[in-house]
């Protein structure tokens, strides 16, 4: 995969500031540590993942602290990204054409903004998951909060924690795959900028907004309106 933005005669468009990138990668690194150590507690097939945090005991000790760190990182990230993830008019139509998106028939897709609806849905899933994981994680943090919650509460909390973590991990696998799938995305999060072509092709609404042009000009092509057959 090409981690470098294509060389062009003009500078790219800034998609992520260095602050956002650092914020994202701190969240991502802590997520990986949490997912691996958490899976180790979930299924014996993953128990060897306890080594990423220095062994089984250290995983038990560090997992909750890393979790709090990830929550704080993600909270800042989520606040930064909140306004860009509002549902917009074209998003519903985009979702109806998800098959076109998946099959790379990009020219049929309605122009969308900085994030496509798939990214937005994943954003909401992440927000909900992180809140649930924090709340249930506090309950099952035995060494600090063990005495405050009765056993039946623990049972509910640990089940919710596991199921939520499963949803989040599955979501992040999709997130990572999408970044590999859509060329230029990883470079955007590593280097901060995207090419004009990338922005115009994948996020025409955002490109129009960034360049002050109208979407029709940006697309330079008719948008197939599937709602009218």
């Amino acid at each position, binding site marked *: 995969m090409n981690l470098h933005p*294509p*060389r*062009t*005669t*003009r500078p790219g468009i800034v998609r992520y500031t260095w602050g956002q990138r650092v914020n994202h990668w701190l969240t991502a690194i802590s997520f990986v540590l949490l997912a691996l150590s958490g899976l*180790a*507690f*979930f*299924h*014996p*097939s*993953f*128990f060897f993942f*306890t080594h990423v945090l220095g062994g*089984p*005991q250290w*995983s*038990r000790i560090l997992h909750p602290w890393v979790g709090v760190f990830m929550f704080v990182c993600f909270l800042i990230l989520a606040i930064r990204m909140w306004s860009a993830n509002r549902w917009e008019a074209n998003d519903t139509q985009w979702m109806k054409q998800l098959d076109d998106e*998946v*099959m*790379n028939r*990009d*020219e049929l897709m309605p122009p969308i903004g900085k994030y496509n609806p798939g990214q937005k849905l994943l954003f909401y899933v992440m927000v909900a998951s992180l809140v649930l994981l924090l709340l249930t994680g506090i309950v*099952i943090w*035995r*060494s600090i909060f*063990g005495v405050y919650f009765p*056993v*039946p509460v*623990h*049972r*509910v909390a*640990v*089940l919710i924690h*596991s*199921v939520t973590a*499963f949803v989040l*991990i*599955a979501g992040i*696998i*999709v997130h*990572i*795959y999408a970044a*590999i*799938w*859509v*060329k*230029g995305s990883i470079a955007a999060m590593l280097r901060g900028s995207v*090419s*004009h*072509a*990338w922005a*115009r*092709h*994948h996020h025409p609404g955002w490109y129009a907004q960034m*360049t002050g042009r109208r979407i029709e*000009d940006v697309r*330079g*092509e*008719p948008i197939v309106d599937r709602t009218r057959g």
Partner: protein
Amino acid sequence: MSDQNIVMRSATTTPPPHARSHDIPVAKLIDVSKCIGCKACQTACSEWNNLEYTVGTNTGVYDNPHDLEANAWTVMRYFETEAETGPLKGNLDWTIRKDGCMHCAEPGCLKACPSPGAIVKYANGIVDFNSDNCIGCGYCVTGCPFNVPRLSESDHKAYKCTLCSDRVNVGLEPACVKTCPTGAIMFGSKVDMQEQAYERIVDLNERGYVNAGLYDPAGVGGTHVMYVLKDAKNPQNVHLPVDPSISPMVSLWKGLTKPLATFALGAVALGGFLHYVMVGPKDEPVDDDDMDPRVPDPETDPDAIREARREKHESGRAHDTPGRGA
């Protein structure tokens, strides 16, 4: 200890070593009707297992310590009630129950434990904690239907009654059994203990304890610590669960969820990879202006802007080329 008699091992998906597993299932029978509350069993437990619990404060009851602790594996619980049956009917009645691990045939602690080999069940039925492998997560506490395991605050390991597995393995009875002055605690094969219990229950019935019975709950597959209760129809009176079983929450969490979620995560990852193989990456067009430095920038180059406007004007609305507009 040669651990080749293990029939269940926590967080293990292959058979544990069990060639030497033809032991007879054992059981401890606690006859509550014979207990005088002397706490000799508590002392014997502490003596044999080298445990010392911290001296607590008196809150007006005889229970001391007030609850099971990481270093108090058995506790006498005192219940002062009005007898509903038996010779003391209508009068004050002491019921004293020796609390501790029940050694379930289907141990909830073992089911919940994430650490391979931290909890084992021997062929004789004893459920034992292997502290070397314990990671201190407390899942055993979450899994136990009887609220027995306790996490140590000093080493963060879980502890509970071992049924004196070290003594039993060399043919001795547990320390509490050895010391009980009234014979209220008995030990032997589970079958023998059940027979012993039924004889005793007949005796208690004849003395008017019409609800006397054996507490060997089927919901956890039976237990290797059993009680003869004066009122077996109301075990909740002595703080025993009425029909204990592994909580459905725990079964779901450490049952079906485990293989399903694991499979699903693998499927999502594989699905992504196969999508890449079949459909390929999503690229912006490679013949885009950005890719060719010889093409003037349509946004900044005046000629290019004019050219683009002229082209657009000429072609009108009929864009028949799906390429990039410039």
